[in-house]
């Protein structure tokens, strides 16, 4: 029974990874699960300099989901390399560094800095966070700009480059093609969907940023659809995510075309969710007598 998958050059022992921003810097979860068991840890989105993020009023629960407007608060790439990576190197798992910048130059610089660090196995480029404003949003929604910023980051790293797509677009297929044209080795599909909630008593938005990103089971049908559409548009491997709570949910993404899956919001509900999903994937493939999980990828029968 083979569970290992190759995500654009990144060899994972199994297809279960954690989603950026929902698993801290990984080390915080060592208490809850054996980090050696999961395919990879994707760390919180990193920027060149530490970032303060948005003012309080950052999370709000919605039906079967949650909104967040953390605003990419992080300790910065230097502190990550100095304080977190040495600890992470102790585990036999892959580390995916999620990163972002405000300009193309910052993306390039961040990619270069992370590539030089010992213990980072792949880069995940976040061009799609709904909590950043104005010009920034265009990186994740305008195919031409996507291709441009990915091309630039591509030159700055020899590591597998995963581009994380925004679901807030008319055509996820166009965005997938743009990222691949820019040199992406793999895609992460999807980031959160922009939403908002209002407190009807105070008439104020629940989030200081007014809008935030919707995640959790509520968005799963949308995420599965986008993975399906992206997988049809490009040939690079896809990490599927969006509302995965169970092994069955993960299989749904794999059948839709994902080569690996990321566990996000589920980590909040159950910090050991990723290993439980992995165990249940194993049960499924044993029960269905599947030798190699890769044969299941895109296995939907239409």
């Amino acid at each position, binding site marked *: 029974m083979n569970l290992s998958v190759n995500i654009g050059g990144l060899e994972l022992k199994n297809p279960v990874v954690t989603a950026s921003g929902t698993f801290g810097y990984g080390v*915080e979860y060592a208490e809850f699960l054996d980090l050696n068991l999961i395919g990879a840890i994707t760390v919180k989105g990193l920027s060149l300099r530490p970032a*303060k993020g948005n*003012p309080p009023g950052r999370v709000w629960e919605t039906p079967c989901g949650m909104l967040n407007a953390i605003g990419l608060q992080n300790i910065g790439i230097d502190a990550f390399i100095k304080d977190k990576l040495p600890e992470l190197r102790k585990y036999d798992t892959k580390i995916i560094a999620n990163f972002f910048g405000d300009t193309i130059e910052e993306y390039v610089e961040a990619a270069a800095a992370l590539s030089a660090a010992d213990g980072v196995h792949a880069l995940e480029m976040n061009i799609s966070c709904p909590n950043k404003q104005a010009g920034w949003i265009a990186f994740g929604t305008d195919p031409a700009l996507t291709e441009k910023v990915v091309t630039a980051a591509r030159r700055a790293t020899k590591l597998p480059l995963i581009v994380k797509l925004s679901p807030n677009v008319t055509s996820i297929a166009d965005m997938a093609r743009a990222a691949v044209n820019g040199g992406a080795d793999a895609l992460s599909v999807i980031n959160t969907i922009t939403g908002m909630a209002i407190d009807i008593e105070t008439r104020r938005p629940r989030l200081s940023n007014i809008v935030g990103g919707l995640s959790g089971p509520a968005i799963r049908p949308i995420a599965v659809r986008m993975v399906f559409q992206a997988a049809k548009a490009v040939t690079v491997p896809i990490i599927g995510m969006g509302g995965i709570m169970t092994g069955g949910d993960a299989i749904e993404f794999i059948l839709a075309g994902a080569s690996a899956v990321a566990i996000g919001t589920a980590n909040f*509900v159950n*910090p050991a969710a990723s290993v439980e999903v992995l165990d249940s994937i194993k049960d499924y493939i044993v029960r269905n007598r599947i030798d190699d999980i890769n044969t299941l990828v895109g296995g939907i029968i239409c």
Partner: protein
Amino acid sequence: MNRLFTAEIVRNDPMDNGYFALQVTPDVEISEPDIGQFFMIKTGESIDPLLLRPFSFVDFIPPNDKYPNGSLMFLIGAVGKGTNILKHLAVGMRLSVIGPLGQGFPPVASDEILFIVAGGIGIASVLGLTNVNPNTPFFYGVRTKELIPDMVWFNYTGINTFTTSDDGSIGFAGSVLELLEKQVSEFKRGCGGKIKIYACGPNGMYRAMAGMNLDADVYVSLETPMACGIGTCLGCAVDTVNGLKMVCKDGPVFNLKDIIWDG
């Protein structure tokens, strides 16, 4: 010790006023929690509500013959989706729990006098303090008499309580802070000495306290919406003079003077 565990409901008693008293016993050994710390509790099997809910514990009964892993007592107000589900769960059911979490109230030095202040359901977070500080004056403000939970449940019957109510239906008629201020200055005029105040109540109460001239070290337990409870989602931020802090990890207990109240 792993802070993720399951616990069995051993008692779940609704009170007339919308509160309910929940007692659970962990299926495994857990760390002894400090007063002011809290637990994240899954309020049922459903994915709606999705997230766990934070609750301070009122009391931790150490391991004993009946409960080899001890037991945790909670006092909870049924205010929304999650708490109303939790309220109806049957004895014998198991809950998923994470904790103890965060930083509780700091210890009280021997040369300090403690005053405790509770506003409404805030009593759940500070009631346990009377255990270690039995004669401490306990200021407890409610809107009206009916909103006082049945304390007998918790075996806290001999507390030195100063009750106040907005409508005068019980105790001093007026704000709990009014009474506190009076007693604090009386104390200062009398025996004197260093005062610590530990408080739990609505944000409005804290803001008012921040505006008062209490000449005391005031610690308060904050509430914000939370997703993870363990410091990783960065969702429960609060603005302090030392920058943004996470209520679930750096708090929920903070020195009142550190909090920046805006808006």
